[in-house]
């Protein structure tokens, strides 16, 4: 038996349908889609701790998926329960880790440089062409 969030019920059978795929995965954008089997109203919770001490309600309703975005860096835990049944699902944990700052600033510098050079080449070419036109006419 597994104690999950204080519940005594064995809930190994209740889990997100993409649990295996997502469990302990590292998300670089803070985005994930949680899915569960259709059937009845559910309550979806999220917390920063495995014990779900201060959970946030993410969703309550009859849909069978939910897109979660904007997660902060760090580890997040998710669980759900069917409202007409006791017991929570197996908790899912994911880690959000953004691109490291060195790589980020290198790529941003590269992007800025290429963009500036490109715009510069166009503006320079257009002005030169305009000047030549003026001289010819």
């Amino acid at each position: 038996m597994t104690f999950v969030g204080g519940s005594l019920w064995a809930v190994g059978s209740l889990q997100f349908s993409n649990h295996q795929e997502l469990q302990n995965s590292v998300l670089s954008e803070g985005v994930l889609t949680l899915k569960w089997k259709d059937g009845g109203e559910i309550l979806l919770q999220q917390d920063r701790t495995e014990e779900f001490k201060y959970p946030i309600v993410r969703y309550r309703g009859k849909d069978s998926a939910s897109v979660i975005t904007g997660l902060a860096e760090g580890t997040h835990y998710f669980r759900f329960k069917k409202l007409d049944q006791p017991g929570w699902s197996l908790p899912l944990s994911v880690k959000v880790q953004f691109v490291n700052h060195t790589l980020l600033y290198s790529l941003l510098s590269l992007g800025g440089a290429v963009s500036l050079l490109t715009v510069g080449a166009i503006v320079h070419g257009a002005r030169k062409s305009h000047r030549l036109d003026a001289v010819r006419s």
Partner: protein
Amino acid sequence: MNDSFTIESSTGWGLILSLGALWVLLGWHWGKKATSEEGFTLAGRKVGLALGGATIMATWVTSNTTMLAPVFALKFGLWGMLAYSTASFGLFMFALFMPRIRELLPDGVTAGDFFYLRFGKAGWTLFMVITLVYSLSWLVSMAIAGGDLLEALAGIPYQQGMSLILMVCVLYTLFGGMYAVIGTDFIQSLIILLGIVVIGFLVWGQVPLAKAHAHIVTHQPSLLLWVMPAALLAVFNNLLFGFGEVFHNNVWWSRAFAVRKEVGSRAFALAGFLWFPVPIAAGFIALAAGPLGINIVDENQTGPTVAAAVLGNAGLGVFGGGLILVVLFCSMASSIDSLLAATSDLLMKDFSARVLKHPTRPENFRKVGAGVIFLVGGVTWLLALPHWPIINVLFLSGPLVGSLIWPVIAGLFWEEINRSVALAGIVLGSLAGLFSYFWIGWFVAALVGTGVSMLFSLTARYIRPSSFPPLCSLKT
């Protein structure tokens, strides 16, 4: 998706058929102005600022814009929307190209004419491969989006809905050519902008800013970061992807040749001005999803889901579903018709003359033009039918079109270049960009493609360059 706003399939059919009939009728009526091949392909080269600016803007507002902008906002927050808006910069830059394009190619008809003139047959071939991959994947992804939309909003089976939307666009384009495309684009642009404003203000009215902000800070804090890595990286990548798309594609070059010479630059600048706020105005509604308690089940349906819920809350219900359908249909149609016409022109003019060595006779323009448009539409339909994720091909084309940016700049503004080195840059830039797409991420692919090609182009300017051929009428 919430069912309270979904419309009956009969309503969905009715809306598309009646709007479609209107476009076809107008297309046929305006198409009578095309008494020559030039009229059919370039609307007589006399399009004014209003219609010119509108068609450029509307063509660039695709279903990807109206559907993907909310997805960017949902995933990447404020910077995500701003990153999307940088795609308008390509239009501003193209405005600077205009005088030179008209000088280089006073009788030009297609972008292929430019690539052939400045880079010879090898350059033209590379351009054709890249542009056909890009254009077809853009066309197909919009046909697919149309089918998905009709299924989600009106329960019309995907294959039927997709076929209907595509058939309407093919019909009015082949009846009226560029006149039909530009005329309908103007009406569609007004509907798109009005629809975005109506939906946007309704969302704004339903969500108090302070409450929404507080909700996002608690539940989706990354969306409001000043340094949100994925979003920031998207800024330059999107900018360069946009440059690549606009600088190379015949959709824009055909408009460059179609507008009156004296308003050309202003038409592109106006279009850029009109387009810039659209991803923000259309996208921000996704930020209302959390505060309004709207659950997103499929990120690709974020826009319609939120818009429909908001319109439902405002008591507009089924009318809301209809409004969303009309706005999205217009954004698709305004791009599909332009792509059909521009791609068909390339095949009709460039391919037939330079590959088949059998130029189209001017007196056959209507028959051949209609036939090619029908063919392109048919290929699009066949590729859209199995519902493959063709949008991924479109994203993958980022480095390909990015690698064409500097060759276009060189061909327009430089006097000499080492052609082989420049063309090698296109190939290697494309490959490097594709490699980086899979090895580093989607957010650098266009940047890498452009950067590598840029290095080769700059090298080509100084290492054994040879002069471009003298300006003269195009000879195939």
